[in-house]
Structures are given as C-alpha cells and as structure tokens.
C-alpha cells in the first residue's frame, strides 16, 4: 500500500507540474465561461443554457484530461526509461500501475472539482443559490473519467501514446453511441444477426449509463436505481480493465 500511495503522490506531482493540464484547465474554464455568452444570445431560460454548456464542457475536458494524461504518464515512464530505476526498487509491477492509476484519479478529482466550482459560481451569479444538484451529474461524470483513465492506462501498457489516445478516444465514442444498438436490436428480427448485435452490446461499454446531464439541467429526477447501477457498472468495468492492464504489464519486457 505504501508503494502505491508513494507512486500515486509522485504521479499527482508530475501531472500538476505539466503545462498540458493547465492548458486543458484554461480551455475548460473558458468554455464554461462561454456558456454565459451563449445564455445572453438565447431566448428562454438562461440558467439552463449555462448549466447545459457548463456540464458539457466539464464532460469533454474531463474526458480529454483522462485520456491525454492517462496515456502519457505510463508511456512516458517507459519511453524516458524512468521505469528502470523504479522497478529495481522493492515494488511489484501491479503496485506501479495501481499507483499511477490512483495518482491520475486524484488529479481528475481535483480538476473536476475546480471545473465544477467555476460552474457553480457562474450559476450562483445568475440565481444567487448554490445548485448542488449539479454535483450529481458531476459525480457520474467523474465515474466516467475514472473508467476512461483505466482504459487509457491499459492501452498505454502496450502501445505508443498517440495510438493509445486514439484507442481511448474510440472507446469514449463507442461508449456514448453504443446505446443505439438497443434500438437496432429492437428493430431486428430474431436470428443469429440479432444475437451477434446483442453480444456486441453486452461487450461494448455503455457510457450513457453515467450521463445524467439532461436530467440535472432540466430538473428531472435521477432514477433511484441509477445511483446503484451507474457506480456498480463503472467500478466493475474499471476493475476488469485494470486487471487486464496488470496482466499485460506483468509479463512485459522493458528493453
């Protein structure tokens, strides 16, 4: 546990000293701020526009942070050969990987917290109330970022940072569009084709399970089951992805 925590701390330190993170944070802040401009140009409920664009900005930049930093950090250790001295220390390979993951989760926690704060302040400027319901959507987004981090780490265990980023981006996009398979399944007639699509739907990620932005923006209730299903889905998926990453990483030669 000490080794995982030490590596997590160092990963956090590395990420917060990386300019890329601040660049992303700046653009995230600017995008949330942009919601204010869009609200002025829109007829109707301005606050809804602020919330909608703000949450979308958090979702987009959070995912980008998870993918870009997630794929970069492990690959950088291998590319820069810092892993040579690290694995010569009394740590096991899975501790290294879990430490990296924990450090990144910590970074995402802080960054999502900062982005949420900007959004809450902006909404406060309009309504003079702290809309804590926004944090419900952010909670589900955070689960998505954590899952994306695990995926990014898995890809970076055997691929270059650029390819890993593309694969992770692919995972993100598939995750947000795989719900359309359900519609397809409904329209298909029973047979082997439908079984294949059904199998595909089970295998592919469904990140829409973690998307409650619309409900929060429009004041709709989040189904009670979602509070259990969403986190359970994210935790199990993350654990499986991490387990695969550990298996890949455990047998890898660092030439």
């Amino acid at each position, binding site marked *: 546990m*000490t*080794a995982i925590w*030490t*590596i997590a701390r*160092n990963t956090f*330190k*590395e990420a917060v*000293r*990386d300019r890329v993170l601040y660049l992303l944070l700046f653009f995230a802040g600017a995008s949330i701020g942009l919601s204010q401009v869009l609200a002025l140009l829109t007829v109707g409920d301005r606050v809804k526009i602020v919330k909608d664009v703000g949450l979308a900005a958090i979702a987009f930049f959070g995912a980008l942070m998870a993918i870009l930093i997630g794929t970069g950090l492990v690959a950088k250790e291998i590319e*820069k*050969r*810092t*892993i*040579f*001295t*690290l*694995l*010569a*220390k*009394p*740590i*096991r390979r899975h501790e290294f990987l879990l430490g990296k993951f924990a450090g990144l989760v910590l970074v995402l926690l802080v960054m999502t917290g900062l982005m949420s704060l900007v959004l809450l302040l902006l909404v406060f400027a309009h309504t003079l109330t702290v809309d804590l319901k926004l944090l419900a959507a952010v909670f589900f987004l955070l689960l998505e970022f954590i899952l994306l981090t695990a995926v990014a780490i898995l890809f970076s265990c055997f691929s270059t940072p650029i390819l890993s980023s593309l694969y992770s981006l692919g995972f993100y996009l598939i995750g947000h569009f795989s719900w359309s398979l359900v519609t397809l399944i409904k329209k298909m007639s029973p047979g082997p084709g439908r079984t294949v699509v059904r199998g595909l739907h089970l295998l592919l990620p469904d990140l829409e399970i973690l998307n409650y932005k619309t409900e929060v923006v429009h004041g709709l209730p989040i189904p009670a089951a979602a509070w259990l299903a969403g986190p359970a889905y994210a935790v199990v998926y993350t654990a499986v992805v991490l387990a695969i990453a550990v298996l890949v990483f455990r*047998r890898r*030669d*660092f*030439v």
Partner: protein
Amino acid sequence: MSRVLELENVQKAFKLGFIPKTRQVLKGISLAVDEGEVFGYLGPNGAGKTTTIKCVLGLIFPDAGTIRMFGRSYLDPKAKAGLGFLPENPYFYDYLTAVEFLDFYARLFGIPAEVRSERIPRLLKMTSMERAADLPLRKFSRGMLQRVGLAQALINDPSLVILDEPLGGLDPLGRKEIRDIILGLRDAGKTVVFTSHILQDIEMICRRVAIIVGGRILSQGRLADLVSEKVLFTEITVSGVPEAELAAHGECVSEPGGRVMVKVYDEPGVEAVLESVRVRRARIHSLVPRTQTLEDIFVDMVKTT
C-alpha cells in the same frame, strides 16, 4: 563469505523486425558474486551486459535459467530491498528537485522520515551535489544526473549495488570522485557489481571480473589470476646512442630531441641496451617494463570470437 548474486545458465532472445527474427542475446550466462567484493562485468558494446543487468532487476524475463539475489528469487521485493541500482545514461523525473527525487525513492523503500532527513543531505554531500539540492533535474548536466543517480542507488543503504557504466559522461575529476565512492563502498563491506567497457576503471577497482562477448561469458575469475605478471616487453627511452646500435636489440622509434625509444623483448636485450648507454656515457630517460593488462586479454578474446 555468502553468495549475494547468482546467475545460472540465463538465456534471453528477442524477436526483432516486421517479420520477427529471433536474436539470442544471452546464451547461457552463469556467474556468481560473493559478499563484499567489487565485481567487474566487462564486455564490448552490444555484448549483453545491460541485458544481463535488466534480467537481474526483473525488467526483462529470461527465457531460461535461474537468478538468485541474497538467496531469494530475484523478483522478490525482499531481495530488492537490499539492492541499489544506477542505470546507464540515467533518466529521472525531470520535474522533481534532487531532494524530492531522493525522497520519492526513499519512500518506496519505506524509509522513515527521520532517516530520510539525515540520509538525503549526506548522500547529496557525498556525491558533491548539495549545491544543486533544490534544482529541478531538468537543469542538470549528464554528469550531475550521474551523481544524483548514484545517490539514489545508495538511498536504502544497500548491501548490493549494481552500477551500469557508472563512469560514463563524467570529467576526469568526476570519474575519480565516483571511483573513490565505489572504493568507499567496498571498504564499508558492500558488494558492488559494475559494468564497463573502460578497462582501466575495472583494473583499478575490481577484485574479480567476468568478460562477456557475444552473449557468452568467456572468462571469469580473480583479476590477479587472469592478468599475468610476466613482463611482455620493456620500453627504454635513451639519448646519446645511435639508433643503428640500438636496433640490434629491439624495435626503435625516433622521438623529438634526439631521443630514441627502443622496445626490447628479452632480459639480455635490456642488459645490452643499458651496457651501450654506460659505454657511451649516454642518458636513460625512462625504462618501463610492460606486463600483460586486462586490455590485452580483452582484445585477444574479442578477436578470437
């Protein structure tokens, strides 16, 4: 004296290229390092030195053979707790300062805070890096990285220190300092394994050596046993004796200032040159008997394989 490191028939092959072609890098390495000795692992570039070290550290997995460290499996964290390692061309976290960097590694060993606060400044002082303690590593020169790398290798007060080309990239003064540190480790009873292709370093520091060429250990043993004390030839530099007269006793080379360097291969030849100098009341500038060096053995081995 207990055995600190033991490799038995370690083999490793890599698959290279688009259509994978197997290249056998280690072809059955067996070597043993005893407690308290400075062991030199010598070989030309590409011989398999670093690959052997990487196998020992668990960075790559051998295809066959066994590796034991302190009597345990080399992958056992308990074995690694007593190990210090400095890689060739060290790359470290350039966003950390020297103190943060050493503190990070110390924490990985679970070293308590009070020991860390005493040990880190001591190691920085030992490697002459105390003035750069709060500088980020990205501002370090290669020599400075080598020094701070050595400091991290010693952060856990290891019993076994593995140094991969530790004297590379250092100026003459830096080389001497690092050599002195290694000798200090030996005097403190530590076991040191270091790889090098610079033979003088190995000759100066090591008690035992292993020579690896083309993935095979060609020779292993005490340096004194490998290198013969026998005089191969004697180089005598004289002035005041005609070159033609000296040529009868050995090979002559004219040097500036009317000096002649004559290379004499036997004892009577040396006597004859000295006699000529005495008779002609000439001058001897130097007389150097050349014994066999590690370089001679090494060059012979590389040539014959």
